[in-house]
């Protein structure tokens, strides 16, 4: 009886060891980190490709520096197509089939909103790179972090900048009807209203090509300024078609979509885009950190682009910060990585990345809203202006806020 009990114990121990070894093998080299990016329509493919390239550079840099826990890392890129239903599926696949231990990247807010629940339920930490919707961190989920700014912060910058326009009475906001565009447009309109400025919101499907009818309606509104909260080539189409109709950036103050930061593509698609304002996340290239400058050089060489987009830098940092957290945790266990992320101080391309609030300290203790949970508090948000035709976004004037200002804005039609 004793012998059989001992044998059973040995067998159980062996089985437990084998399971443990299996788990260890699952974490064996290379350590896999997921990378979300929209690489097919209707997602913003130009943004997705920039993020993919940046995450691959992060992988190479981390491996060149010795990897993580003695292993190389492998960034498994997953195409979200900018669609929430697709995002849920790819997050499931990354975790259950590819065996990733953490996930970075992410461009569209709708992707972040939909996929975060999957990752959190499965205990996989995520550092979202470019998803702005407030609820992504506002739901206070244990495994969800973000280094992109909150939508409400970017909206604040939009309306506060608009209110600096002399004699402004009416603003038209063109937004995409997504988890990014809808709250951003409503927050911007609310902020404008607080400054006594009326606004009308036009919302369009993501990927809209023909704006002729909308442009006529906007003309009939007779706005003093236009703010575009649309991503990808849809923003290029709108800006140029507005310019063709006499309400473009050379006709009235006009803020175009963020993808104009890839200025080579912007000028190809919007030849009449001079004087457009663009929101940029992160400091100007002249104020980049050493790591930021190194990344920019490699990125430009790899992609042949003249500028480095802020979402590319965010994507790079999302992978790098996860790699550091895994190293500091000493394991690929999700909870341990979360603890390491909450206590991290990472020198990234965008600056020093850290998270003030989370399990260790609730935002309410400092009177902050839930959206500050696992949220990097320091992303710089600036407004630049293409003051010369064909100008690179890295050389464009920073016109807002005062802290980063390099030139006064040129107000057309004054």
């Amino acid at each position: 009886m004793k012998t059989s009990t001992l044998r059973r114990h040995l067998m159980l121990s062996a089985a437990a060891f084998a399971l443990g070894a299996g788990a260890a093998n699952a974490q064996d080299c290379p350590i896999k980190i997921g990378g979300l990016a929209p690489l097919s329509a209707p997602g913003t493919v130009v943004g997705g490709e920039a993020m993919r390239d940046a995450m691959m550079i992060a992988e190479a840099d981390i491996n060149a520096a010795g990897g993580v826990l003695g292993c190389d890392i492998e960034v498994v890129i997953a195409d979200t197509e900018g669609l929430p239903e697709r995002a849920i599926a790819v997050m499931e696949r990354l975790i259950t089939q590819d065996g990733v231990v953490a996930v970075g990247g992410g461009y569209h807010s709708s992707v972040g909103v939909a996929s975060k629940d999957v990752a959190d339920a499965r205990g996989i930490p995520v550092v979202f790179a470019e998803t702005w919707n407030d609820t992504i961190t506002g739901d206070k989920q244990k495994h969800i972090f973000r280094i992109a700014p909150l939508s409400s912060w970017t909206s604040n910058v939009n309306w506060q900048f608009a209110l600096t326009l002399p004699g402004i009475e009416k603003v038209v906001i063109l937004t995409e009807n997504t988890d990014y565009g809808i709250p951003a447009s409503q927050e911007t309109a609310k902020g404008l209203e607080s400054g006594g400025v009326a606004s009308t919101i036009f919302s369009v499907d993501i990927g809209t090509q023909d704006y002729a009818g909308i442009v006529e309606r906007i003309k009939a509104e007779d706005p003093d300024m236009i703010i575009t909260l649309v991503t990808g080539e849809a923003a290029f189409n709108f800006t140029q078609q507005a310019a063709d109709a006499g309400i473009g950036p050379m006709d009235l103050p006009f803020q175009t979509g963020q993808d104009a930061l890839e200025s080579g593509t912007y000028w190809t698609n919007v030849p009449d885009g001079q004087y457009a304002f663009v929101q940029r996340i992160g400091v100007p290239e002249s104020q980049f950190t050493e790591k930021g400058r190194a990344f920019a050089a490699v990125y430009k060489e790899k992609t042949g682009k003249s500028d480095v987009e802020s979402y590319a830098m965010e994507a790079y940092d999302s992978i790098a910060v996860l790699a550091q957290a895994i190293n500091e945790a000493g394991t690929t266990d999700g909870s341990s990585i979360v603890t390491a992320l909450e206590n991290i101080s990472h020198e990234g391309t965008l600056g020093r990345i850290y998270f003030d609030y989370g399990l260790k300290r609730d935002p309410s203790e400092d009177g902050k809203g839930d959206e500050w949970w696992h949220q990097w508090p320091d992303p710089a948000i600036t407004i630049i202006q293409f003051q010369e035709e064909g100008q690179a976004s890295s050389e464009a004037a920073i016109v807002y806020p005062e802290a980063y200002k390099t030139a006064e804005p040129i107000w057309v039609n004054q």
Partner: protein
Amino acid sequence: MHPKRNGGPSVQTPEIFWGVILWMTVWGVLGSVLLRRRYFSRDLDTSNVNFAGAMAGAALGPIGVAVLWARTPKLSGRITTFLGLTAVVLIAAAFSFADPENNCVANGAFRASQFTNGLIIGIIYGFMALGLTLIFSILGVVSFAHGEFYMIGGMLVYYITVVWFPGVNPLLGVMGACCLAFCIGALFERAMLTPMYTGKIDRPVEYGILATFGLAFTLQYFVQALHGASPVKVQRYIDFPRWEFPAGAESPLIETRRGNLTLFDTVSISNPRFIAAVTCILVLLALLYLLHRTWTGKALRAVSQDREAAAIAGIDPNRMNMLAFALGGMIAALAGALLVQAFSWLPQVGAIPAMRSFVIVVLGGLGSLPGAFIGGILVGLVEAAGTGCIPDAQKAASYIPAYGMIVLTLTLLLRPTGLFGRRFASGAHGQGG
């Protein structure tokens, strides 16, 4: 000409508008059901009675239904068109009373601009759908690669005029794109669709759909792999001269500037759209000449009507299949080649135009060339009306793809063959010969 109300969220007196719509719907349904029974009981042609009955009820209420009930006239195109237009006018009148300060009602310049925009884009939609319906009428296959032909048309113009031969005349770029698209269509048809005609395939229609799906994915991802996802655009092909008519007038009837054409000092049409629409009309006329005045065109039409009889008459139906597929692809490519100067272009750009083409082809009647063109214009006008007139600015532009679908749904309910459809349009699925 300033609007009286800007971006207001709703109709001022919605009860008027929705009351009229309810009245029209009730009498439309009654007219459709009652007149169908009436025509059926009198052993008359019922093919058009659903549509005519619905329009009579919607436009003229009980009077219209009663007149048709009593007289049971032959329901010609003239009668149904009159009734349909009357129904549209009634809806417009109800909207005007319900929302008199809406831009579509109070602002004549705005109305004219929206109509012109709708007409111009509708001509381009119709032209693109023409290629799809040409393929269907001959091969009996709906080409799911139509959007990708549209995409490669624009991409080829970009590569020819910007990358491969910078500075070359855009006309050569457009012609080159058309020739290459024609060749791709012909090669694909020969390589992939011929098994449909030999009887080796049990389900030729499904095979054709899947083969064209495959071509669509291949073309799209091939271009994305080669080119990447950055959107491109070409400069406008022609600059308008600076011109006014009458010259020196304070408000000229026609005024051109490099990038714009202004009519009556109110309607502004961008240069690329104008060039695209005019070219579409010219090519359409050339296509009609080809189909009605040349042996090849007559052979194509003969095959679309009766493949076996055409084969007996010495026409090779398989060759016509190849020609139709290549021509259809080339037409889509030409639409793309003309619009790459107006829109940003990337490998996925064909998805929405392709979907719209399917709607237009079904709306116009499967296999009907005039139906495709008129259906395109109709969809363009409905989209422009929806975008311009729906009071809530947040909803007006969001629902653009839905406007065409509403028209399609109504058409399918009332006239399943479409506006100009034949009842048995191309059932042969390319077989024979």
